[in-house]
């Protein structure tokens, strides 16, 4: 890709998402992390002792745990944990009325179209800016159903019994270095509890924004869907473009009790200086359904493998994902399905596009434990390469310890097809447009799973990324 085209792309991103606000914070922790910082965060939030202890223990685990030695060692090793702000409190109070959000932050989210989206099709919205949720609202009719939708800090304060029961049960701090770090310094995120036999018909949404340079955002989301309930949660994320890197390291735990259904949709559009190292995992009990719909467009390096532990009979898990990597980006994404009960089923559909010098990796696990008879699982990976220096990896793992199962995996890697391009051009469509059409066709199975507004937005992002794709 020519440098002026890159400039062009950056300019577009800059305009839409890449602007930065002047920093005007109530509290900004100095760079670096240690027990003092952990203590400070916990005290600031006036947390119960058990949470404070949890944080400190997790910090010990973080220090002890080695860096993952797979994925992208070079990039992982470039993370300087001492050069990050672990906590930034942008404002003193959380607004429930849009008008009360501080002007600069409000303008940010307005540029990103949040209030508009809220009015149109959301049942509730949370907007996180740096370390804290700055705006939160939930529609009254949803609240009256007994649905709890709040930021994680308030959740811990207002519903300690539910939080404590489930907290860290899906992703313990020992799971990996970044889960441990998140457990030590977490702030913000969403807490959702849906009471039994309640269907939240319209999506709940969270929006995450990193504004400061060298910022670490460590939100923590916990969603519990009680028996026979249903909820759809959507999250989006952006950040400005800086020359130095920021770290986003979330932990998301989902629990779908018997017969419950959780759909979790992510459109990740971080700027290309963000390390996005996220642990997402769900427990699906008997007859429950978990769906991860995961779009990764932005970031410098993403390592994210949404997982479903199918713990009860007939539980079902799905991961539907797309990843786009342009030059300077590595999307290391995938999915994990752990079949730990009979007659559980799962499906993984992964689509990736590598362009220029971009790299995508699919990393997946399908595991069927002994005794989990009657399980079925199907994995499909499709990778599209655009450019002779683009790269695609596929690393699936299947561990099958039970005979009466059906496991299928298929992967394809190919170049954007010349025949298709030729055909479209012969119909008078210019090459850029033709490429875009092919890519749009390629990701269509993903896009059609999104709410309409998101589908439109995603198509626009892809268009932006594909601009000047000759190269």
């Amino acid at each position, binding site marked *: 890709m020519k440098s002026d085209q890159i400039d062009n792309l950056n300019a577009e991103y800059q305009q839409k998402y890449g602007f930065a606000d002047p920093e005007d914070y109530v509290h900004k922790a100095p760079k670096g992390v240690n027990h003092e910082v952990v203590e400070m965060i916990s005290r600031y939030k006036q947390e119960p002792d058990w949470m404070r202890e949890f944080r400190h223990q997790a910090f010990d685990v973080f220090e002890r745990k080695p860096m993952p030695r797979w994925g992208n060692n070079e990039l992982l090793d470039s993370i300087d944990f001492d050069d990050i702000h672990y906590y930034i409190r942008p404002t003193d109070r959380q607004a429930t009325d849009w008008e009360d959000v501080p002007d600069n932050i409000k303008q940010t989210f307005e540029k990103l179209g949040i209030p508009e989206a809220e009015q149109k099709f959301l049942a509730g919205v949370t907007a996180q800016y740096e370390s804290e949720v700055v705006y939160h609202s939930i529609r009254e009719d949803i609240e009256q159903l007994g649905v709890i939708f709040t930021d994680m800090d308030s959740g811990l304060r207002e519903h300690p019994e539910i939080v404590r029961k489930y907290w860290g049960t*899906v992703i*313990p701090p*020992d799971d990996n270095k970044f889960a441990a770090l998140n457990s030590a310094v977490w702030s913000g995120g969403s807490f959702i509890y849906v009471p039994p036999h309640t269907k939240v018909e319209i999506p709940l949404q969270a929006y995450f924004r990193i504004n400061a340079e060298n910022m670490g955002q460590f939100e923590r989301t916990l969603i519990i869907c009680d028996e026979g309930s249903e909820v759809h949660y959507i999250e989006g994320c952006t950040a400005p473009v800086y020359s130095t890197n920021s770290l986003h390291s979330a932990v998301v735990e989902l629990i779908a009790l018997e017969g419950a259904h959780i759909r979790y949709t992510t459109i990740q559009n971080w700027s290309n200086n963000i390390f996005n190292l996220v642990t997402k995992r769900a427990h699906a009990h008997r007859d429950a359904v978990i769906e991860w719909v995961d779009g990764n467009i932005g970031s410098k390096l993403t390592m994210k493998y949404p997982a479903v*532990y199918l713990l009860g009979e007939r539980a079902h898990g799905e991961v539907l994902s797309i990843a786009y990597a342009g030059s300077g980006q590595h999307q290391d994404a995938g999915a994990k399905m*752990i079949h730990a009960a009979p007659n559980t089923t799962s499906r993984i559909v992964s689509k990736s596009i590598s362009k220029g010098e971009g790299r995508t990796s699919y990393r997946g696990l399908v595991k069927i434990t002994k*005794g989990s008879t009657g399980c079925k699982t199907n994995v499909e990976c499709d990778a599209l390469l655009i450019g002779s220096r683009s790269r695609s990896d596929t690393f699936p793992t299947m561990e099958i310890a039970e005979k009466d199962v059906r496991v299928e995996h298929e992967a394809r890697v190919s170049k954007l097809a010349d025949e298709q391009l030729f055909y479209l051009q012969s119909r008078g469509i210019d090459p850029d447009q033709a490429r875009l059409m092919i890519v749009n066709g390629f990701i269509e199975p993903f896009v059609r799973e999104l709410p309409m507004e998101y589908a439109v937005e995603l198509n626009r992002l892809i268009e932006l990324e594909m601009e000047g794709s000759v190269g």
Partner: protein
Amino acid sequence: MGWQRACRLEELPVAMTRPVTVADEPLLLCRLDEQEIYAIEDCCSHDDAPLAGGTLDGRQIVCPRHGARFDVTSGAVLKMPAPVAIAVFPVRLTDDGWIEVEVAP
């Protein structure tokens, strides 16, 4: 297979674990007390790698890699990320100081 010698009692101090292979089965012996010894499958059900090297916390073995916990007396899983229980094997002490394990054929 029946009862098989695993190791000498004095080779396994109290509050320690010891990996042994008995009849091709990789086992982890866990000595909780003077006479209280358990034999578990030396394999975490999370990543299928050995539990050897993990710490004993009372009756629980903590996986050295991701902190999953199992009850060594029953094999029950007590903490994620391990999804299912592991196998336990009967243990006995002989009069002449051997720890023996019963491994099914």
